[in-house]
């Protein structure tokens, strides 16, 4: 073997040995110390951890977490999210965490209930690219070729151990990964953004009812109809308070009063007064109607005034109202 070949062989063996040992040590350290290397696959923690950074996270109890820590947790869909803690609310043995990416203006849409979390204690820029490349199909192929070559270099062509060892290693690696015990993780550390639009809303200003329409028929015999005041309803928020006064507007004495329920347009409100006792013929009456708010029974605007007079109803001896003054 020439000197150059021997140096190359030694170099490749040392390289492979160191890389392989680093992998094994990181696996063992991960299990022994609860340490998880995290590859940041997006930039929502920029600039502290850019996309491609490798973070080293250590599992800690929820009670040890503080606002400002960068933690890695699983969201509702099972994906790993690594963001900074902006609020902690203790809940039983665990804590409800509100997280926000440094590059995000708004917190994550969900909160995370955790009993423990992986707190990032160290970040290595760009190192994640190496791990990402190594875990790609191409990277796996390169590793396979490299390890095959090294095993052949180390053990020689004749060894049946080489293919067996390769298969065993691959099976072991896939088994470790599939069982979920591998202390490595890719973390999405997703971005968030929000936008909002506001619109001012108002309801119409207060309104009052129109001047009531008065209808009545002061005919002969049975052909009579008492006064009927109608106006268009203003909606559910308005009620109507009325007063019937005996005398000449604006004086006289209050004869009766009452409140009418809300009516939605275009239906109409109807006010009738019924029998009045002691009408004594054609006395003057007048009706005042106020629009009121249902909410606080306060009057809106001025009342309307409708002039009325009393007159005999069919089959006397009582009286009721007819439209118009005496």
């Amino acid at each position, binding site marked *: 073997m020439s000197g150059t070949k021997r140096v190359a062989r030694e170099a490749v063996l040392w390289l492979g040995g160191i890389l392989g040992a680093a992998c094994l040590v*990181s696996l063992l350290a991960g299990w022994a110390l609860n340490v998880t290397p995290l590859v940041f696959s997006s930039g929502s923690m920029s600039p502290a951890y850019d996309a491609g950074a490798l973070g080293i996270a250590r599992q800690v109890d929820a009670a040890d977490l503080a606002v400002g820590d960068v933690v890695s947790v699983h969201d509702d869909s099972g994906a790993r999210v690594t963001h900074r803690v902006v609020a902690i609310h203790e809940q039983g043995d665990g804590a409800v965490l509100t997280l926000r990416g440094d590059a995000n203006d708004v917190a994550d849409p969900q909160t995370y209930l955790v009993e423990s979390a992986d707190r990032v204690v160290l970040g290595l820029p760009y190192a994640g690219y190496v791990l990402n490349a190594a875990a790609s199909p191409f990277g796996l192929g390169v590793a396979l070729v490299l390890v095959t070559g090294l095993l052949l270099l*180390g*053990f020689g062509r004749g060894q049946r151990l080489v293919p067996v060892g390769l298969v065993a290693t691959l099976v072991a690696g896939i088994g*470790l990964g599939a069982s979920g015990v591998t202390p490595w*993780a890719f973390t999405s550390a997703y971005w968030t953004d929000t936008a909002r639009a506001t619109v001012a*809303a*108002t309801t119409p200003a207060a309104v009052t009812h129109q001047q009531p329409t008065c209808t009545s028929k002061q005919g002969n015999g049975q052909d009579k109809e008492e006064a009927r005041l109608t106006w268009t309803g203003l909606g559910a*928020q308005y009620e109507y308070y009325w007063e019937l006064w005996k005398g000449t507007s604006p004086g006289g004495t209050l004869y009766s009063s009452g409140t009418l329920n809300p009516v939605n347009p275009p239906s109409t409100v109807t006010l009738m007064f019924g029998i009045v006792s002691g009408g004594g013929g054609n006395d003057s009456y007048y009706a005042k109607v106020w629009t009121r708010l249902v909410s606080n029974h306060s009057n809106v605007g001025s009342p309307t005034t409708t002039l009325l007079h009393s007159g005999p109803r069919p089959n006397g001896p009582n009286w009721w109202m007819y439209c118009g003054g005496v």
Partner: protein
Amino acid sequence: MARQERHPARHRAGRGGWFGHGRTRALLSAGLLLGTGAVATSAYWTDHDTVAGTPLRSGSLHIDLESNVRVRPETIGSWGDLSLGNLANGTDRAAIMTVTNNSRGPARMSYRVQAGAPNALGAALRLTVRRGGTISGGTCTGGALIGAAGATLDGFDQAMDVTLMPTQSHHLCLQVSLPAGSNLAPSSTSTVTFTFPAKQEPS
């Protein structure tokens, strides 16, 4: 000459046995395959949303309204398209809100539609959201209904049914109604706020 002859013998004697010729290093290097295999499998099987070997994404996420481009934080103080003044009972008002993913980088986006409004007027308002709907006489028709029609506006919070790729837009028809028979004081006021929180999704 003598040194050259002795050297291989000393080398072999120093390592000796089965582990000579760099066999330790060769065995250790298998750890590389073990590690990468484990990481790749783990990424594919357990973190199913994230696939190792895909490009690591840098960029930024931007959800924009109307014709805005990468405004952050974005608040349209008084959205002119929707007029909610002088709302009488039984009134429907509708407008189209354009929601665009203006992210840099391959950032697929999911978002929610949230609405809120204070006071008695806000509590009375109803909201109907139709993605791709059109306005017909103050109401929204067609498209995909998001959530329930005529839902209570205050506290409305629905996920959009489909995600947005960069440069894509949704046209959301937003219909705000004040039901007939609402019992509100005249000149009641409220401020309706539509919020669109967006989240990056794995591409």
